[in-house]
């Protein structure tokens, strides 16, 4: 990596696997369960969090020396809320249908533990460039899990990907459906998202025993 020093590159790479915000730190689970029934919603949610966390980390990092520590949570909340409102309005303007699917969960990015967690743990103590990388890295780690879960839930639950039927038509009985295949309704229910995340955690910890804590 010529562009980034080794230390900086780790900021992006670590959250993708061994320090993943969802599977290792178990943060941001709420939205991972709520909006992953469709791949498209997962992707849009990921991009929203990417924007909010990337920009938010930089803003907090720039202000870190002038924020009185007693009211830092309030300042952080104002920064997140501002960014989330921007995302929300952009979605309403350019992707209205999708913003309805995501409903309150865009607003709930404000309370997403990953964001406050990164502000507290990283941006308050590091410079803007490193904070930016950290924000991007953690948002990508969040995105990876959301997209994996969304992929399986939409594929097995609705037989589509990004709204495009890939397994045939369930009403006309083409493709896989001709053989008696049926969509798995359980996949569309929230508990299944928890189970899929659980399976990802299981696979990850089996591959890397160092992650197993007791």
């Amino acid at each position: 990596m010529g562009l980034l020093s080794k230390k900086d590159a780790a900021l992006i790479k670590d959250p993708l696997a061994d320090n993943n915000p969802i599977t290792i730190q178990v943060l941001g689970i709420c939205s991972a369960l709520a909006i992953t029934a469709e791949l498209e919603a997962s992707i849009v949610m990921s991009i929203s969090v990417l924007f909010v966390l990337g920009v938010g980390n930089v803003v907090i990092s720039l202000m870190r020396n002038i924020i009185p520590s007693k009211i830092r949570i309030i300042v952080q909340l104002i920064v997140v809320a501002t960014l989330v409102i921007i995302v929300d309005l952009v979605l309403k303007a350019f992707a209205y249908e999708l913003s309805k699917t995501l409903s309150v969960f865009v607003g709930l990015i404000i309370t997403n533990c990953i964001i406050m967690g990164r502000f507290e743990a990283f941006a308050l103590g590091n410079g803007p460039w490193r904070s930016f990388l950290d924000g991007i890295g953690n948002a990508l780690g969040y995105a990876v899990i959301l997209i994996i879960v969304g992929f399986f839930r939409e594929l097995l639950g609705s037989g589509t990907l990004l709204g495009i039927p890939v397994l045939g038509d369930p009403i006309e009985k083409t493709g896989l459906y001709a053989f008696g295949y049926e969509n798995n309704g359980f996949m569309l229910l929230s508990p299944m998202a928890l189970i899929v995340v659980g399976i990802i955690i299981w696979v990850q910890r089996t591959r890397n025993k160092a992650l197993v804590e007791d």
Partner: protein
Amino acid sequence: MGLKSNLHNLKEKYKGKKMAPAFNALHTFLYLPNETTHNGTHIKVADDLKRTMNTVIMALVPCLIFGMFNAGYQHYLALGEIEASSGFLGSTFWTWDNLVVGLWQVLPLVIVSYGVGLAVEFLFAVIKGHEVEEGYLVTGMLVPLIVPVDIPLWMLAVAVVFGVVIGKEVFGGTGMNILNPALTIRAFLFFAYPTWMSGDKVWVHGAVERDQMIAAGENLDAISGETILGAYAQNNSVAYDYWDMFWGIIPGSVGETSKFLIIIGALFLIFTKIGSWRIIVSTLIGALVMGLIFNGVVDMGWIGDSSKFYGLMSVPFWQHLIIGSILFGAVYMATDPVTASQTNKGKWIYGFLIGFISIMIRVFNPAYPEGVFLAILLMNVFAPTIDHYVVQGNVKRRMKRLKVKTA
């Protein structure tokens, strides 16, 4: 030399290798191994886990055989080819034709259930390098008994993989599971493929197929096999009398219809001390109490016959025990020693709540008028909590006694 020594030789050959658990399991399942210890005195106990499991299976066999006959009987009865059987020994029930349909429909369920389930068990034993656990022997027998006869086999296979892996193996295998694996499998099927698990078509073999033929334009009469609970939930009249329900010549999941054979199985389990009579009795008491409350609500006139709950609420309370699968659940599911409460007082609470909640879900669930499996799974989750408080209560009482004595 016979099979036993062959298995023994295979076992010796693979000792320490990856596949060893698989051969060990086959060997000890069929025979008593030759190895004996050479020093020290050991107490030999015959009722090990395999013996326990086999006893439960023996108690289930009558239900399975009855289920096969019933599958054929319901099929031909719905087609109008035979007369309704009068009583348990009716001439049109125990016929060869019925059994053939039953074998053809039910045996594949049994084979898929055992084949897939044991394959998963063996796979995990080989990966994790421990002995194969016997836990699936009973689960594999229960699964075909608690699904509708026409369930597609691939769905059953998917559900069995899910149930064994998520319901049991992730927790560490047999004895560590929180949820009853057989009910996990049923719950998976119920939530994943609701059209195959509820409604008035799936309970009788051929009804779904007949529907498809009619949809394709053939001139046939639709056949339906509404369950009794289904009829009550729609405020319809029920075409079966109490003896039909007791003997079990009614539509339903494969093995749960005959209350008569379940009671025999229950007595067998209680007599051999495999099943806990406390759980069975308290479950039935819980169901009766909830039934009485609902009857009371109807008697007080708090709910009119226009209410959608009227049909199920006005069922005489004792009748709740002979319709639906409450009895099967109480005898074979709730008593699972791993997932039930361990303390005697805890068993009473655990069982009572299962019965109570079962009937509550049965009446109020708008999508599916039965809730035994949901109630048992729910109480499986709470069983350790119940035990905790029973034990703590006991500790507190004895501490008090100690204080009085020493004071």
